[in-house]
């Protein structure tokens, strides 16, 4: 087990160490200790016009951030709608969402591509964000959380006090759901940060690329002639922010794995 955790950490250790060495040093061999070229590598990456990494990180932050926000909000809304109200299609709607729970997005990719081209959203960040309104897995998580922690009498009480339904949701239900929303926001953020398939099909222009596409571009470029220190430095921003967030919030994330993971 120690070997396994060593393996898990080893690669990231090499990554970080190598990002601090210059190209010439890396050509000579492997180092176990950090070098001194960290700032030099950082600057050469930041000022590289061919791979706009900083721009990519910014784009990724925009996309992942808005995805996490709207995905959790609308999933909570949907879950609340199905949980708290009685209407004819309630059963049908729930069953339907459970059916599409694990359907891969790749199968609809072709139609999706054509659709957004027709809608004039090709090569923009919007088609990466808007579809996350409908995420069945997050919905299911929210739904089971509501089942366990929202008494309907609370909603009734709000109604008697004359609260408008929408306001009830925003001011009473949302605060109760905060823990669930936080966990799902993290997962959605990570998922969207790491997503490669859809952005690679949608995005064309360089200033709109997200981090994964830039990584792919880097792989496609003429590899051997490049500055090795720089390559490690470019992989770094893709991985390190997530690791930092993870280490800060690991307790909640681990608890959330089994909770959401059971249903995919």
């Amino acid at each position: 087990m120690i070997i396994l955790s060593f393996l898990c950490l080893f690669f990231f250790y090499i990554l970080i160490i190598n990002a601090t060495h210059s190209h010439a040093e890396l050509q000579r061999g492997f180092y176990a200790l950090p070098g001194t070229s960290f700032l030099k590598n950082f600057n050469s990456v930041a000022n590289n016009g061919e791979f706009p990494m900083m721009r990519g990180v910014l784009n990724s932050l925009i996309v992942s951030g808005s995805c996490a926000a709207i995905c959790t909000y609308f999933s909570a809304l949907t879950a609340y709608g199905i949980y708290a109200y009685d209407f004819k299609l309630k059963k049908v709607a729930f069953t339907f969402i459970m059916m599409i729970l694990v359907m891969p997005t790749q199968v609809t990719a072709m139609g999706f591509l054509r659709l957004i081209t027709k809608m004039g959203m090709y090569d923009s960040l919007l088609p990466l964000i808007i579809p996350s309104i409908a995420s069945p897995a997050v919905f299911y998580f929210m739904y089971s959380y509501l089942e366990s922690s929202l008494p309907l009498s609370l909603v009734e009480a709000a109604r008697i006090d004359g609260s408008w339904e929408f306001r009830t949701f925003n001011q009473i239900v949302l605060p109760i759901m905060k823990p669930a929303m936080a966990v799902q926001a993290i997962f959605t953020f990570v998922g969207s940060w790491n997503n490669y398939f859809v952005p690679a099909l949608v995005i064309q222009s360089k200033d709109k690329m997200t981090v994964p596409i830039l990584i792919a571009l880097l792989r496609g470029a003429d590899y051997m002639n490049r500055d090795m220190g720089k390559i490690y430095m470019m992989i770094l921003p893709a991985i390190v922010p997530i690791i930092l967030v993870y280490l800060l919030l690991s307790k909640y994330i681990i608890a959330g794995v089994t909770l959401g993971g059971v249903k995919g």
Partner: protein
Amino acid sequence: MFVQKKRKLVNYAKWGYIFILPFFASFFIFSFIPLVDTIRYSFYEYFRSGIKEIGPNFIGMKNYASLLQSDMLKYAGNTLILWVIGFIPQIVIALTLASWFVDVRMKIRCQQFFKVVIYLPNLIMASAFAMLFFTLFSKTGPVNSILMSLGVISEVIDFMRTALGVRSLIGTMNFLMWFGNTTIMLMAAIMGISPDIFEASEIDGCNSVQRFFRITLPLIRPILAYTLITSIIGGLQMFDVPQILTNGQGNPDRTSMTLIMFLNSHLRSKNYGMAGALSVYLFIVSGILCFIVYKMTNDNDPDGSKAAARANKKRGGR
């Protein structure tokens, strides 16, 4: 009074529809219409050669037939092989780790720490991970130089040139990325088993190996099956790692080309008819798998997977 109450209820039902509207509208536009469109074009001859667009002409099932004659089956085989290489060690290690972790008598210290570490690779961007591996295992990369200086090998190994090298790299990456996730799931499942059962088995003189095979394994079978099927669905979608590692070529000799990579290359070359037909094949397979998962998680299953899932959920929620 009664009449008024009834009127109010109808009113509330309206709110239910309003609240779920965004979800379904978004699903309808961004998933359902594309799906129908994909299926429709799978029956058409529709591709682009140069600047000229050919089609769409209706050609019936021709796309499906020509896909069967193309390399699709080979790619399906590749996907299967890559999945197996990653999955077998993953499930073995995860089972061992999970039962170790849970075993009361081997109170392992820093349990939380290990959990955090083994789950870490799962959150890493797959494409960055693949790029990292590519750099590390390249001819001039650190792995070769470490092995050289330790005297394990006498000349550099070019991992990228042999099918075995590339495949095992992909398998290793998938294993590293997913074993933590599986371990944590299985742990929750094992912890859901009543301690009374373990105690009873101990009194009956059961050793730890017997306990594992006779008690733990049968009791967590539903979760195992669930893990297996979700993993197959995930494996079917395998794309990022081989795509980046081999630069979309599936080299050497297309032995690491997966189905989704094949789909991706059709989409890139705007060969919509073929891409559509391939999507439909994938849709059917994953539809069947989805249905199994749906059955397992929603029915009152005779094998008790629902109860296990619920126990699992409770554990995780603490």
